[in-house]
Structures are given as C-alpha cells and as structure tokens.
C-alpha cells in the first residue's frame, strides 16, 4: 500500500480548473441533480456537479457493478455454439465526489465480487475507475453511517489499516478543498496544480466540520453485538408484522444498496437462433422467486424475505466477510415506498430483549 502523501489545499477555482483539464482526458462520473435527486452520471461540464449532495439514488459502487452486463455471446457455427467472451472497457474514468459511506460500500461489495473467484467485469470496471472521495457535510434524515464509523468523514476502514478504496480525498473548507492523496494514480491526477500547505486552522476547521456534521445525524443504530442479537431473534414477530403489512417485495431496498450483489443470469436468443446472449443482471432476495427451486420455494413469505435482507446486512455478513453488510447509507430506508427501516427493526428487537 502506498503511504499517504502530504495533504494540500486547492482553492475552489483551482479545483475547477484542474477538473476542467481532467475532463478533457477522462470520462468523469459525478453527482448531478436530476429533478431534485443526485445521480452519478457522466458529466459534460464541471458546473453540473452537485457538490453538496446528501446521497445519490444509485450508489457509486453500482456504477462500477452494472445493472446489466453482457457476459458472453454464443455464436452458432455449423450447429454448435462458439463462446465469445466479452471484455470490459479499459479506458480510465474518474468517479468523483464519492462519500465515505459509499467508498466503504465499494470495499464491502468487493469482498464478494473480487474474492477467491473474481468477477472480471466488476474487476475491470473497478480497475479503470479512479475514485475521488468527498467528505459528507450534509447527511440526510435516513443516514446513519456514523453508527458504523463508515462516515460522514473518511477514516480507514473500521479504524484500522491504510486508507483504501480511493485515490484522492477531498474535504470542503472555507479556504477551498483539503486534498489528501492516497495513491500514486491520485497524485498524478493533481499534477500541474499548485497545492498549498494546510494551516493549523484548516485542520481545526476540518475537525469542527466533522463534529458539526456528526451532530446532524438523527438516525442511529446500536451496533453493539448486533449480529448475535439478530441471530437470537430470527423468529421475532417483527418480521411477520412488517413483512406482511408493509413489504411490497418491490426490491427497491436491495437495488439501491451499495453492498447488495445478488444477480441472476439469463440467456436471450435472437429470433434466428444464430446468436445467444448471456446476461448477468441485478437480482434481489426480495423477489418472490429468488429462493425458488423446481420443487418449492425456500422463502415463500415476505416475512422470510425481509428477514433475509435485514439479517444478511446486520448479521450473516459478519460471519461471511468479517464485517457488517451495511454501511449506514440509509438508502434502503429512504427508497422503501412504505418506509421500512432496518434500524427500527433492530431497535425493536433490542428493546424487547432488554425488557425481557
């Protein structure tokens, strides 16, 4: 791992100029405002960037892990099918303005997709993405990354190890942007820009802003022994009640979650059967058919499916990957049409355990 480079300050104007220059060379994907919501999209001008956004609809990790990916092509040649591999693009691009929770989202997602078995499309898309992080100073009402320590300001994952998951890191301050450089590739992005050394008051300001942001959080999750707590209550009535009364099985929660990785593979033949395309696309444990096999369904009820989502994030993940599957971004809560809230479910279970 590369040692952190010395942090520096770049004025707003200098930053814009730098990005303008980068835009000529790279594809830049950054938060832009579409009808009042932040979306990570390819930008054409720097002015499109929405710096003060709170949370994007689709997380940046799922810009890397695409909704639909053509895996391979089968081409019919004299009656038998030739497998034609599809390769991810290699042109470098910049993912700009990624909040700490979402950087952790990428790191968590990677534990599944780039482990012993590597998903070459994810790996390829990841490799070509330079990530520029941005500390979050505008948490939304559903955010609770502070409970996991994955935000709002960036710190190495779970408080240990070298900084991971991004090349550059920015914090908006009065005097401009405080820029921390984590990788050689990140350093190269800054070449040609005059960074000034941050003053003590800059660093104090950063701490103050951090504290001020922490104070803005209204949602909290007690993560103390959370995995074991949930494992003790897999038959708690909350699953049935919330699942049946409110869950629509619409899958919005999982689709917007930065760490959800489940996928389906489908074959699509062309009408002349000469070419068959094999696609991978996002799937969801909330879909009714997700756990279906030819003789039945292992999660036929909404209760079982909701429990799978919440317990996977807040418990099973720990055994699988040694971390929680939730980074506290709040998207599943925010985008659930009926407002199902995993922090409330966890709190309800904890309250009752304390009472008993």
């Amino acid at each position: 791992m590369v040692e952190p480079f010395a942090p520096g300050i770049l004025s707003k104007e200098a930053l814009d100029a730098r990005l303008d220059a980068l835009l000529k060379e790279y594809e830049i994907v950054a938060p832009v405002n579409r009808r009042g919501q932040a979306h990570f999209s390819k930008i054409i001008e720097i002015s499109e960037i929405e710096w003060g956004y709170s949370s994007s609809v689709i997380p940046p990790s799922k810009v890397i892990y695409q909704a639909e990916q053509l895996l391979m092509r089968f081409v019919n040649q004299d009656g038998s099918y030739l497998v034609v591999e599809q390769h991810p693009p290699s042109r470098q691009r910049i993912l700009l303005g990624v909040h700490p929770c979402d950087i952790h989202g990428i790191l968590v997602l990677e534990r599944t997709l780039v482990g012993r078995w590597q998903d070459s499309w994810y790996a390829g898309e990841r490799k070509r993405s330079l990530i520029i992080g941005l500390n979050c100073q505008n948490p939304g009402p559903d955010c609770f990354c502070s409970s996991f320590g994955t935000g709002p300001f960036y710190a190495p994952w779970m408080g240990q190890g070298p900084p991971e998951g991004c090349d550059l890191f920015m914090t908006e301050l009065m005097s401009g942007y405080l820029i921390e450089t984590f990788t050689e590739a990140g350093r190269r992005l800054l070449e040609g820009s005059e960074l000034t050394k941050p003053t003590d008051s800059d660093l104090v300001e950063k701490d103050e802003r951090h504290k001020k942001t922490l104070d803005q959080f209204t949602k909290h999750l007690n993560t103390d022994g959370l995995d074991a707590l949930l494992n003790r209550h897999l038959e708690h009535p909350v699953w049935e009640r919330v699942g049946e009364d409110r869950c629509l099985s619409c899958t919005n929660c999982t689709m917007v979650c930065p760490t959800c990785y489940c996928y389906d593979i489908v074959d699509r033949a062309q009408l002349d059967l000469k070419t068959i395309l094999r696609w991978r696309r996002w799937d969801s444990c909330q879909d009714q058919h997700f756990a279906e096999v030819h003789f039945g369904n292992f999660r036929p009820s909404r209760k079982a499916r909701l429990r799978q989502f919440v317990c996977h994030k807040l418990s099973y993940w720990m055994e699988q990957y040694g971390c929680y599957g939730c980074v506290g971004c709040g998207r599943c809560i925010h985008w659930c049409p009926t407002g199902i809230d995993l922090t409330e479910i966890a709190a309800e279970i904890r309250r009752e355990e304390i009472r008993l």
Partner: protein
Amino acid sequence: MERPRIGIFKYSCCAGCQFQLIYFQEHLLETFGAVDIVYGRMETSAGSEEGPFDVVLIEGAITESKQADQLKAVRGRSKYLVPIGSCAVNGGIPAIKNLTPELEVEQRVYSRIEPIHSVRAHPADEYVRVDAYLRGCPVGETDLIELVTALLLGTRPRMIDYCVCVECKRRGNTCILVAEGAPCMGPVTNAGCGALCPSNHRSCYACWGPMPGANAPALARKFEAMGMPPDEIVRRFTEFGCPTLEFRKGAELYE
C-alpha cells in the same frame, strides 16, 4: 426444428397485441421466417381455425359465451395456449365494465340492447388451462421474443415475473413514488415494459396487470397515507386487471 404452427384468435380487444406481434418493428421479417401462421384473420385469408396448432395465441378478453365456447374448442387443438396482452391475461381495460352492472353499462351505449350478447369480461384462464402468459398492453417485446425463441429451442419460456420497480432501478431511475409522492403502481405491476412510465416521469398505471402475488393492500394503504381519496385508490387498482385477486385485494379495502 420445424416452424411452429401458430393460430391467433382475437376476442374483445383493440387488436394491438396482434399488431405488435405480427408487424412489430424490426423483427417482422424474422418472425415471418420463424413461425408458420396457420390461422389469424388479421394476417391472412387462408387457413382454418380447425388447426391443429403448436401454439395458439389468445388476444382479448372473453366477453361473449360463444367466444368461450370457441376458446374451449381451440384449447383441444393446440399443444400450447398462451393468452397475449393484458385483456387476455387479466381482463385488461375491457374488464373495467365489470365494476358496474352489465345491463347498466350496455344501456349507456345502446338504446336497444336485445341484439347484445355480452357477459362480464374475463381473462382466458377463467375458461381454459393456459401454458404461459404473454403480458403487456401491448405485449412486451422481450417476453414475446422469449416465447418465440423458447418454442424454436424446444424449451419453456422464462417470462418476466418480477415487478416494475426492478426494471426501474436497473435503469437507475429516481423512484417517483418516494421522491414526488406520485401514485406509482410499479411495486405491484408485472414488469416487462422496461419501466416505461417512471422513466418518462409519470406514474405506472399498471397496464401490464398485477405481478402474481403482489402485496396490493400495502400499496393501497401507502396511497391512503399520501392523502389519496378512497375512490381514487379504487380507480388505481381497477383500470387494468380488476378481475385479478391481487388488484381486488387492493381495491376492496377502499370500496
């Protein structure tokens, strides 16, 4: 693989699914090459309804008893029978009339109702066993190609069986139900359209009918919490597919 012998039977509907099927855009020539349309009055004056068929496609809701009789007879002449389009799959638009007494609806339109032999509109599976559903209003291209290619490959089609939200999120849309309080039916509507409406900044109005097993009451209660009056909630669940159990459950809470 031999070209499958196809029969197309139109009942009460706009014939749009047949247009989509036979004339649909760039696939027209391939479709004609891939299948043999043995009977289909909108396509050809040749052929007879006697079959036998590999696949019969049923378009339209059943609104007359003689349609039901023919449907039953045709079922016996075909290996597979597939309703195509919302009308045949779930009653579609023609079934809106089921909400009012039949006589009253008829009298609003015709001064003499003696020549009329209509009954309530029902989907095809009310009368016969069906082998798959080709949903949509009009039928969706993805499912349609899947049906034809599955036939050619000699396998069962994998039809889209999840709700519109899945496609909506795969497209990266903002959820307009949450963000704007738009009365979107996406969470209970079967996908296949590619989340057309939410992608065009409008609420899904359920033209594909319910996703089987959808939790309509939960969505209906959400609409109520958004301040929607009861009669409007009922209308949301009765525009398409009102004979289905799923949408009945949503509507009846507010009737």
